[in-house]
């Protein structure tokens, strides 16, 4: 069966890609000066000791006196065994810090992603069905507005209006709120809204333009001649083929927004998620934590692209995966 082989090959490629990325990351780290060693030397010099002996001691302590390939093997093993080191700025293991952050990030990014991939195509197809009418113009205007306005700015404005003036949403994020509670909904509604308006524009425009092509297709005429109702025709004969080109752009768009916007939105709304964790790790020069969060984003990207490849072939039966 060609499909099983194709999936296997794609998964294998994903593993190879992630290995290449971790290798490059390792080489960059190995080539860069380690701030901890410099600090040890400075400390020794200040206390009247021998800086070079202190450097030697520190290097031994951190295993840096080992040959490069041994360190590489150690590094790779620790990456894949999820032993990602100790975060000095947070005084906890890196994986623990990442998991805690992911818990908060997931709470807004899951509803955000679900809303984007359901509402985007729906609004897009609706817009195409009413092309150049006022409904289309309203939807298009809304899409471009969300697309154009910077997320963090939009977030601040909304927070000012609904948090400060109308006081319908809290202005500070409360981490103790249970996941499924009205309180959590209220504090997450603005960040989700801001992110959805930012991401739905691109999705909606792609679906609108792709489905415009399909709604004038010969097979739509066939469907009509068969007696298919307009609603069913749009659901089955327009929406379905539109998903194919959409799936190729969706993952990339969502990932770009996820990595870029989540940081800004988390800072604005005070959510202690992955974006803010990365930001703080960079500020406090916590190398292990920076490395860890970089790897999280990398793996999300690799897995996302893998899913996109698989979804694409499942959606479009014309794609031949036998030779790939």
């Amino acid at each position, binding site marked *: 069966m060609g499909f099983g082989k194709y999936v296997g090959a794609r998964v294998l490629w994903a593993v190879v890609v992630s290995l290449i990325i971790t290798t490059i990351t390792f080489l960059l780290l190995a080539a860069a000066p380690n701030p901890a060693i410099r600090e040890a030397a400075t400390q020794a010099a200040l206390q009247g000791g021998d800086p070079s002996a202190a450097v030697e001691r520190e290097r031994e302590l951190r295993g840096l006196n080992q040959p490069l390939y041994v360190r590489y093997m150690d590094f790779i093993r620790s990456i894949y065994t999820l032993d990602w080191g100790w975060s000095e700025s947070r005084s906890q293991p890196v994986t623990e810090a990442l998991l805690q952050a992911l818990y908060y990030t997931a709470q807004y990014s899951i509803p955000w992603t679900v809303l984007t991939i359901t509402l985007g195509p729906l609004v897009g197809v609706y817009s195409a069905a009413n092309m150049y009418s006022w409904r289309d113009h309203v939807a298009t205007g809304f899409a471009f507005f969300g697309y154009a306005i910077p997320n963090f700015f939009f977030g601040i404005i909304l927070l000012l209006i609904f948090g400060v003036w109308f006081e319908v949403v809290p202005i500070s994020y409360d981490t103790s709120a249970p996941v499924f509670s009205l309180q959590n909904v209220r504090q997450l509604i603005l960040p989700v809204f801001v992110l959805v308006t930012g991401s739905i524009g691109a999705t909606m425009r792609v679906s609108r333009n792709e489905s415009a092509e399909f709604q004038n297709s*010969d097979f739509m005429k*066939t469907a009509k*001649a068969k*007696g298919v*109702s307009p609603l069913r025709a749009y659901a*089955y*004969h327009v929406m379905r083929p539109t998903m194919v080109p959409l799936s190729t752009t969706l993952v990339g768009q969502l990932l770009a927004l996820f990595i870029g916007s989540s940081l800004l939105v988390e800072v604005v709304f005070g959510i202690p998620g992955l974006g803010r964790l990365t930001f703080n790790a960079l500020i406090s020069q916590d190398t292990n934590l920076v490395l860890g969060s970089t790897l999280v984003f990398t793996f999300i990207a690799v897995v996302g692209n893998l899913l996109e490849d698989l979804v694409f072939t499942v959606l479009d*039966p014309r794609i031949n995966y036998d030779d790939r």
Partner: protein
Amino acid sequence: MSTRQPLLEVEDLTTTFSTDNGELTAVDGVDFSVDEGETVCIVGESGSGKTVATESVTRIVKEPPGRVRGSVRFKSRDLLEMSEPELREIRGYEIAHIFQNPQEAMNHCYTVGWQIVEALQIHRDVSDEEARAKAIDLMDKVGIANASSRFDDYPHEFSGGQKQRVMIAMALVGDPDLLIADEPTTALDVTVQAQILRLLDDLQEEFDMGILFVTHDLGVVAEIADRIVVMYAGKVMERGDVLDIFERPAHPYTQQLLNCLPEIGGKKGGIPGTLPDPLDPPDGCRFAPRCEHAVDACVTGDQPEEIEVNPGQRASCVHYRPGRDDSVVRDGIPDSTADGEEVSSADD
């Protein structure tokens, strides 16, 4: 033919489209009818309104911007008076369509079986197994080898001719009374064309269908038609039995059209000139600007009334009006009085 009951009677059918440049009249007051089990061909060059006329019958033209007026009586019900849901009951079940381009007429995301079953299950509440069995039976009937194993194949796995066969199978789900075939063989190569025409002929007998066949290919017309309706620029120019029209075409347009057939006329370059602007059609006969027999009476008023030129054959041409000498246009091909020498010299 005379014992047959009229199945479809179209009267004064007018289909307009609103465009940015004004109202475009694609079909302008056209009448035609199809009897039970009969094949009627609408012929004419591209842009003459043939396709729009047939798509107006079940109103599958896009409305808006399209607008269909007139009367379309099918088994003594007026389709143009019906609501959308009522029409949907008839579409694909009592009146089925097949189209010009089988490559694009099926959705590439679904198996052919799914698409045939969809056509059936929209109209009748049948189980998936029953629908599948019926679909395979129909695929078998239209000549798809190994129908049961091809049920789950996608359209791209079929050749053009096979796709058109699948489209025909899809059209047959409701045992339709009328099949509207819009240039179903134009996109196919000649050998496949002949097979599809033969298939339609066989199925017409088996299912006792009337067929409304649109084509610009007079060779195809000669093979399948019982009666012909010649359209030009949204108007009917001439109508009659296939033999009469081929033997004694009355309207100069029909004569010119037949002259384009290589076996008959061999006239080089086809008919000089182009179709009139549908946004601003000329006064009088639509064909007058391209007609070599045009006189002053041809370019004033409306399209001339249809006049019986032979029993069962009618032409919309001023030259057949009482008191006029119709010899200038009568029997225009191939060795007519008007351009006989020209034609015979082209034959050399």
